[in-house]
Each structure stands twice: as structure tokens, then as C-alpha cells.
């Protein structure tokens, strides 16, 4: 197909505004999905996506649409809306000329609507605003179109009104895509450059590479080169997503989006953002590619139950092929042994990786509480200290970065502890402003600005320590605003504060995996709360267990877990044996999932209790 009749775009929106459902209707409207195979959110094909009803990974698909009597090929990418997956959106944007910005007609513009729009504008994309869910009784399509104009600066008249449920407006949307989006930029006659925007490991075919052909041509049988690593491969299969991968024999040219198989056996050879060119006639330069994602939170995974460290290593590496946006490196803890320190784009991302590891590789894990990166400025001048300077400290002092409170050096060597600060934009109903400000102040936020969106909605801007918002800030925000408040944030930099490490002693011995870095003024309070949570999580044992919180050897809070008074089956005769045995086995299984530290069995949840600040 001539590339004048190709349209490459992605669907972006705030979470749950209906991107994936709208994608279903587009597949259906173009005959790519027949009614027989119809199911909801076809593109959310990962088990976890279906269970949680959210998109985690962007997925690409090609469909054909007849507009004005002519055949068009539409390549589009459905993206996730959750703030943790901004990186997925960025990758998708780089492969497109246009973006459909979906706004829920009942909820209107939300924090990720704004954030994703800015990203699309930054990437120079053309935009079609879509007001979706107009079938709902509470929909206010006209009002939302007005918001799009007032808040986002797009013309209200350009809005297309759809219901991804009934299919209303979908043909108009497809027509508008053909009409308003430009044909792919790029030159089929130029030297071949294809951008790798995703990859997947397939047991039979090796690595399957997803690409957008920016310039030149590609066909089956070509010898290709990965520009960053310099390796060459032989293309054995080339195809498109319709929506299943479908091999094609004709060559592809600039503007096309597809996948290729080239007997690539190791995932390390494929870098997302790398450029593919022809080995025989290579392009002189690679495409700019993507910025490496920057992990926001870190936690450790340790093997538990009968999982061995080697099994965990394999599981972590294998999953990394499918999701390169998390980082991992070996680590060890006195309490928990050998494991991996992993970095994630956010808490949901962390949750998902943990769950995918357990499911897809059948390993059992202990996960420690997530923490952020801290920058530690050490005493003494740089010149006096061996080693290199890292981080963004004042420059005169040696600075190290730690992602685990247990790694904090001796306090006497520390000049400052700096923590990551984010710029947060909170969109909220006006009626909740007071409570949200109170919440932000409790979380050591610094007020920046307040903007009016409409009569009843405002944007609040705060600088907040990342550590204060990663765990339960969203839940708090949702409950304060009855679900109407949303937040988006990005990293701003590091800032010094009066931070200390609080250690937790269980039965008299320090459990390094439970240490946390806290603000000095809040330490007592946090310590008491933390011990209370731990006490709820740790079962009674045959002996009394003292719990203590300490800062530098000084105990600041204590609790005691009483011992089991009595636990013995009163009756066990002939008919009871099997049932009682099974009860014992269950009791045993419960214990096995815990981590024994010294003589105390600590359940996985206890490691997370560290972060729970609710009273």
C-alpha cells in the first residue's frame, strides 16, 4: 500500500477512560475482529491485564479501513493510562504521527490526560480529542469538550463523540483518522532505519522484534544490523499485527509498523529504542531512540519457601526480556540471605512484576518494603576521599547513592541525606482542596500553585518527597475526594532534609530488611505505628517476642507479642484423622510461606507493614 494511505497513531488517556475498549470497537468496525471472537479489551492479552482490567503493556495492531472509497491501513498502539507506565506511552509516541486523546465524558480531564497530552505535544504529534462513554447517563459530552478546549487548548469543535460500549461514533473517528492525521513521514527511498519499540521472547522463534519502519524498506531474507550493538541477523519472517501476528511476503516500507523474527536467541542483543538497518547498505546514523526509564522505587526480592536463589535469578532475567523497564542486581541481607534489588517505575509496576514472577516462573518470594534512592553526602572534601563522585550533591563532597536503608554508612561520616523530590499536579474537586492541602503538608509537601480548571475543579501543584507518596498517597487522595482526585508527578531533583535511619529489632536482633529512612521529627510516631503494624502481622509464637524501634542504638518505641497460650487439638479419633492432618498441613504451609529470622517466623506482609502509615 502506498504510504499516503497509511496512518500511524496511538491511543492515550487517563486510566480507565476507555482506550482498550475503543480499540476493540475499531478492530470490530474494520473487520479485524469478527463478532464471534469478540471479547472485551482484546489487546489486553496478558493474564494480569485481564484480571485487573487495566492495560500494562502497550500493544500494536494493524487494521484496514475504507474511507472515501479508498483503502487505508491504520497502525495503532493502545497504551496504558496508569502513571507508572508513562514510559510505555513515550515509546509508543515515538512510533506515531498522531494520537487519539480519549476523555471520559463522565469524569472529564484528569491528571494523566494532561500529562499524556504534554508528552504527545512534545513528540510533535497531531491530536484528535475523543469524548468517550457518551452512552452513560451521567455523561456531559458538551461540557467535557469545553474542558478540552479550556484546559488542554485543543479546539472543542474537533472533538469526536464516541461510545466504546455501543460503537456509536467509531466510524466517524476512523474517518477522522484518515482525514486529519498525516501520512507517515520518512522516505522509502532513503537508507533503511527501523525503530525497535518493543520485543518479546518466544520459546520457538527466539526474540520477536516490534518495529516502526521510519525510512527505507525491509523484506524477508534481508540481512539486518542492530546499530547499537553491531550484530547482524537474517530476517526469516516479517509481518503485521492483525491483531494476531500475521506473516507477509511483500516488502515493508517507510511508515509501516510490524514485527520481525530473525533467529535472535539472546534478549541482550535487542535494545528497545535501537535502530535496525540493512547490513549491505547501512544508514549512517541511528535514530535518537528512547531515554532509559528511571526507576522511582526499589525493593528486594528474596527466595522463600522451597525456591532457590538460582531459580529466582532465572525468573528475574526471563521476565526482564518482556519488561526492560525494571532493573535488577544481586544483593544480600543478613536476615534474608541472597536476593535481588530491583528498581521500578512505581508501586503498581512493582506489584505487577512481583506477581508476574510468582505466576510465570512459579517462584515464591519475600519482598521488602519499597524505598526510594537517597543521595548521601559524606564528610570531608572530595579530594580527601578515594573513589568517584556521583549524584547531584553540592559538588564539594563525595556523594553516594543508596537504594536500601541498610546500606546507609555510619552516621558520623554523613554530612547530608538528600531525598528525591517530585513535582506533583493534583486535579481535584474544589470542595476537597482544604483536605488535600492538609494531606500534602503532613507529607512534607511544599505548596507551589493553584489553578482553576473550571467552576468546580482545580489543579494544585506541590513539591513532595517521593518517599511520602509512593505507598498510600493515591489511596488517601481517592478517599478524600470520593474518587474524583487524580495526581501525576515527575522527578524534580534531590533535597536535603533531617533524615535518619530507624532500625527494627525483632526478639532482640536487628532485621536489616525492616530498616527505614524517616524524617527525624516523625521518627517516634512512625516507630510506634510500625511496631503496631508488625505486631498485627507476626503470629504469636511459643515464646514472647519483644519488638523495638531504634535510632542509632537508642530505643524509641517498643511492643510485645504475647506467646501462644494454648493450641492443641482436643479430640482426635478415627473419623477426625484426615481432617486434622490436613489442618496441620495447612498450618505448616502457612509457616513455610514465612521467613524465619532467628527463631521468629515473619510473614511477607510484615515487610510491607513498614510503609503502612494508616492508624
Amino acid at each position, binding site marked *: 500500500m502506498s504510504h499516503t494511505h497509511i496512518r500511524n497513531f496511538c491511543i492515550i488517556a487517563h486510566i480507565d477512560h476507555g482506550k482498550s475498549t475503543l480499540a476493540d470497537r475499531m478492530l470490530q468496525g474494520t473487520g479485524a475482529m469478527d463478532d464471534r471472537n469478540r471479547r472485551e479489551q482484546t489487546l489486553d492479552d496478558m493474564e494480569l491485564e485481564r484480571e485487573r482490567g487495566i492495560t500494562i503493556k502497550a500493544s500494536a495492531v494493524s487494521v484496514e479501513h475504507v474511507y472515501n472509497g479508498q483503502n487505508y491501513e491504520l497502525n495503532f498502539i493502545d497504551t496504558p493510562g496508569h502513571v507508572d507506565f508513562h514510559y510505555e506511552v513515550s515509546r509508543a509516541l515515538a512510533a506515531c504521527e498522531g494520537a487519539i486523546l480519549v476523555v471520559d465524558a463522565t469524569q472529564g480531564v484528569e491528571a494523566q490526560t494532561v500529562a499524556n497530552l504534554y508528552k504527545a505535544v512534545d513528540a510533535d504529534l497531531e491530536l484528535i480529542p475523543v469524548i468517550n462513554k457518551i452512552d452513560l447517563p451521567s455523561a456531559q459530552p458538551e461540557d467535557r469538550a469545553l474542558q478540552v478546549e479550556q484546559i488542554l487548548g485543543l479546539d472543542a469543535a474537533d472533538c469526536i463523540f464516541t461510545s466504546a460500549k455501543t460503537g456509536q461514533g467509531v466510524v466517524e473517528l476512523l474517518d477522522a483518522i484518515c482525514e486529519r492525521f498525516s501520512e507517515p513521514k520518512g522516505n522509502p527511498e532513503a537508507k533503511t532505519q527501523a525503530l525497535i519499540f518493543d520485543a518479546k521472547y518466544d520459546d520457538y522463534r527466539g526474540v520477536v522484534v516490534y518495529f516502526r519502519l521510519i525510512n527505507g524498506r525491509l523484506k524477508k531474507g534481508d540481512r539486518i544490523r542492530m546499530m547499537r550493538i553491531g550484530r547482524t541477523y537474517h530476517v526469516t519472517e516479517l509481518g503485521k499485527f492483525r491483531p494476531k501476528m500475521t506473516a507477509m511476503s511483500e516488502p515493508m516500507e517507510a511508515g509501516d509498523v510490524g514485527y520481525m523474527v530473525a533467529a535472535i536467541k539472546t534478549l541482550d542483543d535487542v535494545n528497545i529504542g535501537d535502530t535496525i538497518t540493512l547490513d549491505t547498505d547501512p544508514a549512517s546514523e541511528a535514530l535518537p531512540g528512547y531515554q532509559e526509564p528511571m526507576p522511582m522505587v526499589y525493593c528486594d526480592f528474596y527466595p522463600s519457601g522451597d525456591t532457590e536463589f538460582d531459580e529466582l535469578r532465572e525468573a528475574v532475567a526471563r521476565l526482564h526480556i518482556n519488561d526492560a523497564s525494571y532493573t535488577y542486581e544481586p544483593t544480600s541481607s543478613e536476615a534474608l540471605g541472597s536476593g535481588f534489588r530491583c528498581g521500578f517505575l512505581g508501586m503498581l509496576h512493582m506489584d505487577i512484576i512481583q506477581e508476574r514472577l510468582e505466576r510465570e516462573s512459579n517462584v515464591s518470594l519475600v519482598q521488602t518494603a519499597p524505598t526510594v534512592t537517597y543521595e548521601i553526602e559524606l564528610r570531608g572534601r572530595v579530594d580527601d576521599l578515594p573513589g568517584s563522585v556521583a549524584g547531584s550533591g553540592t559538588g564539594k563532597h563525595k556523594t553516594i547513592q543508596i537504594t536500601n536503608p541498610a546500606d546507609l554508612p555510619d552516621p558520623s561520616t554523613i554530612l547530608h541525606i538528600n531525598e528525591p523530590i517530585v513535582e506533583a499536579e493534583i486535579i481535584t474537586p474544589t470542595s476537597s482542596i482544604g483536605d488535600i492541602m492538609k494531606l500534602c503538608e503532613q507529607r512534607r509537601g511544599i505548596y507551589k500553585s493553584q489553578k482553576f480548571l473550571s467552576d468546580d475543579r482545580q489543579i494544585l501543584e506541590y513539591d513532595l518527597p517521593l518517599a511520602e507518596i509512593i505507598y498510600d498517597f493515591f489511596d488517601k487522595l481517592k478517599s478524600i475526594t470520593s474518587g474524583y482526585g487524580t495526581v501525576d508527578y515527575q522527578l524534580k531533583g534531590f533535597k536535603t532534609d533531617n533524615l535518619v535511619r530507624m532500625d527494627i529489632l525483632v526478639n532482640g536482633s536487628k532485621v536489616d530488611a525492616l530498616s527505614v529512612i524517616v524524617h527525624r521529627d516523625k521518627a517516634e510516631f512512625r516507630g510506634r505505628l510500625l511496631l503496631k503494624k508488625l505486631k498485627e502481622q507476626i503470629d504469636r509464637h*511459643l*515464646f514472647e517476642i519483644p519488638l523495638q524501634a531504634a535510632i542509632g542504638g537508642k530505643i524509641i518505641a517498643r511492643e510485645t507479642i504475647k506467646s*501462644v*497460650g*494454648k*493450641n*492443641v*487439638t*482436643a*479430640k*482426635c*479419633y*478415627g*473419623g477426625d*484423622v*484426615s481432617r*486434622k*492432618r490436613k489442618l*496441620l*498441613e495447612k*498450618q*505448616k*504451609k502457612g*509457616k*513455610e510461606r514465612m521467613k524465619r529470622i532467628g527463631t521468629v517466623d515473619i510473614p511477607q506482609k510484615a515487610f510491607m507493614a513498614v510503609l503502612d502509615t494508616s492508624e
Partner: protein
Amino acid sequence: MPYQPIPLTNMPPDGHATSPTNPAAQSHAGAGAGAGVTINADTSAETSDPLATKTAVDSLYIHVPFCFHKCHYCDFYSIVDTQQRQARFADALICELTQLADQYLLQPTTIFAGGGTPTLLEPIHWQRFLRVAQTLGILNRIHEFTVEANPETVTDELAHILATGGVNRISIGAQSFNPTLLKTLERWHEPANVQRSMTRLRNAGINNINLDLIFGIPGQTLDNLADDIDRALALQPTHLSCYSLTFEPKTALTARRDRGEIQPIDTGIDRDMYAYLLDRLDDAGYDHYEISAWSKRPPPHPPTHSPTLYPHATPAHVTSPTLPLAATCVLDTNNTRPPIDYRCQHNLAYWRNQNWLGIGPGAASHINNQRWKNLPHLARYIDTSPTPARIDHEHLTHAEQQSELLMMGLRLRDGIAIEPAQFPTHTQQEIQRYITVKMLEYHHNRLRFTREGLFVADCILADLIPS
């Protein structure tokens, strides 16, 4: 209705049993040397001896599913029968027994009739059943034949029929002597009837009598418990079973607890109560031989007149009221002084994982490492007679057998003679760990819980069992 004795075959006209002098039983007991085991079940299946090709059964359980009311804590299979199905039930029970007697070497040393309320089964049906059992030779080697009784249902007539039919031990569900606590449990009986029942049973010649008690009842105090124990001891039972109240799933009591209508007692008090029982009953001359079971301690010297080795029901007029006859007399290894053993031999068979068969709806069986249950459904039991539907069939794996050995065997204060090396390393390590913290100990080369360990036996077992 006046009592009409039905003459039983092989019984003298006066209705007294003759089997105590059965020579086969005697020679067997000599060889059994204390354990009460008949023929080694494991080898009997493979041995070339043609007589031993059938699996030998050590014990027989009979489930009688009738009750006149459902107690709120009870999770046994029992029903309040409104359709007069006793005769059909008894027929089915007899047929099942007959069938099994053909299939197995069914000459158990112990029988236990539980329920439900076995004493609710009319005397005529008991009589029919006992006669068939006798005819089939099932009573030939009996050491102990227990029937469970509700204090409201023991009549002179029934006592007599049971005693003459071979029953030599009765277990009475007393639970508590405190009317308020009985009400909390919705257990319907008049406390004074416990004593009346015992008198009737003793008059009929059954002197080996257990009382079941429940402690840790919502609202109960330590004083209440002391009171119950005093009253129980005054009745001079040969055995006491004291159970800490368990909230079993799907019982009315558990539902009431979940609705917040009753408040379980504090585990601290429950612990104090158990500790009290351990001390008090020891002082009163009862040996604690299993977590919830105490047996009257044998006298320091053997009685002047040697007790009958296998005392079946003995007529009342020859029984000295102050010298209750032993249920079972097991010989010492060195065969000098035969002490009287009031431990429940039938329950010991469970705790030692011997071979036992259960008959009646809901009854469980354990034969050569297989377990199953009859479907707990009276109507179906009657309809499918003589081969009731079986459920929950299990063939125990090696690990499961080991778990059961620990779980059942360690209930006994004697503990178990084990070779730790037979167990997985994990189990060995845990045993060692609990010995170090004095929760387990070796006593006469047998592994057992220490007194401290008893209180938290389940926590320890969960660590011990192989996975």
C-alpha cells in the same frame, strides 16, 4: 412394655456371656504382650498362611446416628429421626457387618459404638445386632466393648441387654454438671441422671465407666471447672475424658460465636484450666495418658484375687461395688504382675494407627494405610445396604503416614518409639530444636511432649510433620 429377653445363640439361658474363657483369645493375649495387637496387619496380607490372607482388623467402630436433639457444639453425623427408621438402620448395620466379616478377618479386640447416641437405639435392635455379632464370631477376642451413652437414655433394660451381649465399658457424655453451662452448649440432659445411669450400669454389671467432660465453655470459670471435677470424681469413674471446647466449623455454636452472641473464653484461662486438670486429676489418682484422657491408676499392689483376664459383663451379684473390675488386663512384659489397665483400648488403636473398620453412616475406616468413610446419610445408607457408598478415600503416602504417626502417636503421654533417621532431615532438625527448648523429650527412649509442650502441641506438630 415389659422386657422380653430374646434368647441368643451360644449363650446360656441366663443370658450371660461365655466368651471370657475362649482359649484362642487367651493364647493370643499372651503373645500380644501389652500392645493389644492381634495379627500383624502389614504382614498378614503377604504371608503364605492361607488363614491369614484376609486382612486382620484390630478394632471395630459402630456409628449410630440418632439423637433426640442436636447439641450446639456437635459436628458428628447425627440426626433427629422423625421417620422411625431404627429397624431399617439396624438391618442395614447387621448386613454391613455380615458383609465385612466375610471380607476381612474380623475378630477385633476392641469395639466402640459411638454416634449420635447409641443408647437411643431401642434395646430390641441392640439385641439383634449383638446376637449376630456373636454368631459371626466377632466378639470372640474382645478385650473391650464400649458403648457411648447419653445420661437421659440409660434404662435398666438396655443396661442389661448390653451387659449380657458383651458390652463391658460405657462412656457417658456428662459434659458439665452446671445447668447454665449445659444450656450454653444446648446440651439437653439432667445432670443428676449421670449418677442414675452409672448406678443402673453398675447394677447390670458394667463397672468400667468413662465420663466425658467439656471445659473452656463460654462463661465458665476455674471455680466452675473445679466444681465439675469434684462432682465427676465423686462418681468414681474408671476413666475421664476432658475436652477443651472446640468451635467446629458449621456448628450452631460456631455460628453463635460468629454472630457475637457468645464470647469464647480467653486462651489464658483455657490454659489455666488445662493446667488445673493436669494437677488435680493426678492428685485424684488418675493417670494422664493422652492429651484429653485420664485413666484410673491401677492399685499399687495387685488385688488379692486375680482379676479376670477378659472380664466381660459379669452379673451384678458377683461384683464387689468397691472393686470395679478391669476392662482389660494386659500382661506386663515380664509377665509377673498384671496391672489393671483402664485406658481406652479402642482409642489407643486409633492413636497407634492400627487397622480398624467402621460401620454405619459416616463411620470412618483405616486399613493398611487406606482411609475412607461411609457416606454420612442415613437414607442412602439404608438404600444401598449392604454396601454403603464410600467417600474421602485416601491412600496415604509415606509422608502422610509419617505425619499421622507423629500427630496421633505424640498425643500419648507414653509418646512414640521412633528412629529419627527414618524421618526427613527437616523433621529431625525440628525434633532437636524442640528438645533444646524443652517442649519435647525422650522418656524411656520414647519421644513425647514435655508438660510445657502439651499446651502448644499443634504448633509443634505443624513444624514436625514432613511436607
